[in-house]
């Protein structure tokens, strides 16, 4: 993993890489969520993910550049068993996604947690994400208190968001930034920060694209 070709902070030989795997049932919006974070916009023509997809983005924590690698997995069960296994190797953190308008996808969290534990990731930072909160009516959406209870049970923070709404993009940011911060503070070998480290504990979020697209109100779900 030589980073020599990339622009980087002088004095640092290598960018830190945090590997995050994104799990959840088919159609809950894993691809759109990772796309929103990495590209700063909503993926209009999202397709079913076959196998595993990969996206990355460089962020900055305390003046240090960190590469977040997001592994976006297929939701269909047949891909999980043997195929995705390879990608659990060296994973640092886990994002489990459900669709707030589809209770089944929420109930699957149990099996996703089992899967995570079977891969020895019990101690890895995890977050639970309820996606598509722009869809449906407040009554048809899974109640936050209910989801919060599950999140508490597994000891992970809960985020409710929408990969579609531009107004929610800060929330999407905070999902991955929370993980990044947790991982950063867990690092046993801290690289001594370079000079000018005035932003102690403050995250700088580089905006990739200007978000000038007209706000979208309609739900794209069908």
């Amino acid at each position, binding site marked *: *993993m*030589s980073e020599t070709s990339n622009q980087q902070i002088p004095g640092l030989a290598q960018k830190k890489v945090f590997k995050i795997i994104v799990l959840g049932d088919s159609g809950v919006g894993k691809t759109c969520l990772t796309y929103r974070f990495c590209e700063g916009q909503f993926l209009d*023509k999202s397709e079913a993910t076959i196998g595993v997809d990969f996206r990355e983005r460089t962020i900055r924590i305390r003046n240090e550049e960190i590469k977040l690698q997001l592994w976006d997995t297929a*939701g269909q069960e047949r891909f999980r068993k043997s195929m995705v296994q390879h990608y659990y190797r060296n994973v640092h953190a886990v994002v489990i996604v459900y669709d707030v308008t589809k209770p089944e996808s929420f109930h699957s969290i149990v099996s996703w947690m089992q899967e995570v534990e079977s891969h*020895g990731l019990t101690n890895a930072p995890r977050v639970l994400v309820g996606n598509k909160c722009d869809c449906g009516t407040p009554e048809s959406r899974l109640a936050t208190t209910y989801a919060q209870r599950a999140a508490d049970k597994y000891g992970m923070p809960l985020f409710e968001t929408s990969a579609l709404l531009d107004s929610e993009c800060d929330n999407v940011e905070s999902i991955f930034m929370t993980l990044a911060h947790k991982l950063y503070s867990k690092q046993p070998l801290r690289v001594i920060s370079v000079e000018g480290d005035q932003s102690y504990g403050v995250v700088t979020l580089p905006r990739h694209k200007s978000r000038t697209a007209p706000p979208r109100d309609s739900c794209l779900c069908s």
Partner: protein
Amino acid sequence: MEHNNLDAASGDKFNLNGNCSPSPEKQSFDLNHTKNIDDISTPSELKFDEDFDFEDPQISEKRKEIERCLHSPDTVNLDQWQHLARSKGGLISDDYRKVIWPLLVGVTKDEMTEPPSLDDLSTHGEYNQVVLDVNRSLKRFPPGIPYEQRVALQDQLTVLILRVIIKHPNLKYYQGYHDVAITLLLVCGDRASFPLLCRLSCGAAAPLQPFMQTTMAPTQHLLNYMLPVIRRADPDVADCLDKAQVGTMFALPWYLTWFGHSLNRYSDVVRLYDYFLCSPPLFPVYVTAAIVLYRGGEVLRCDCDMAMLHCLLSRLPDDLPFEDILVTAEKLYLENDPEDLEPEVAALERREAEIRHADEERMRRRREAGARARAGRGRAAAGWRGVTSLAAWLPAVTSRRALLATATVLLGVYVYYRPELLFNR
């Protein structure tokens, strides 16, 4: 599923291939039939292809030859159709493909039957997954296709897929099957694509059959043939893939969808289908090998890292020279018969199993170490945090009284070991 209720209304208007036409005989081998209102969405009307100002004279010549063959199809044998499909440029146009694809896999007109309605199929267990994937297949439709027409085609696609897995309950739907189905549907229409898709899915030598088993293990095994083929042709590239442990996942969607999922240009997809419809089932794997070899320079220049290589390889450039790649793949196939490769594949899989085993062992140890660390922390932890978390691990100790007793004992033990905290002020 907002469009399901449109089905009844749109069924008459948007049937493909003139489903409403009274005489089915008329439809299949007559290219010159006049377009009527029922044909509004015939595949040939859907424009994917850029209009070429200039056509390669060789292709123009081939076009004439195909038209000659189509005028008197009874005089043309399978070998000749196959030759046309495989040789440079393939079958050139969807007008020709629509007739020739069924011939390549031996589908007869009698098999092209009227599809059932979507409502009849909606109780199937895979219905939701299929609809979910079909609804997300927007990218596969011709740009600018009217909304109603697209929705009608998507319904036809759902019906097509469900028809196959209902007829063959042993076959399991996989994400990606819809990419194959839509290619057939767009080219051949809903009546011809059903027997065509059945032929490709069911039977010992059916190319999609391994993908439709209960697990993906057979697919994974077949995809593993790619690596020895690459190794024999270019050991440096193979070493690089090996060292990065990139695996074969980057090529999985290629193989599962015959590249339908991964290529942006429709013309490339149908060209490959021309070839695959008359190739051995494993041939697409040789095409994946040929693509990796073609991009060998990029592979060697890339960081030897799983993520980087996966990222590089999984995104196919738009300008791949598929005619050359097919020639290379054919050559690779002739030089490296699948049977010859078996020992190498077996060795590869043994090694993978060892790595997996070591991984599992490592995970087991990590779990145990984690449990030990927690237990240790539980013994020595100060204050209520330790006590409460201990209570969480010992679900039996849930009553308040038991909790209080445990806490007292633990505090006693703790103070015994570290008295300085209490007395050393």
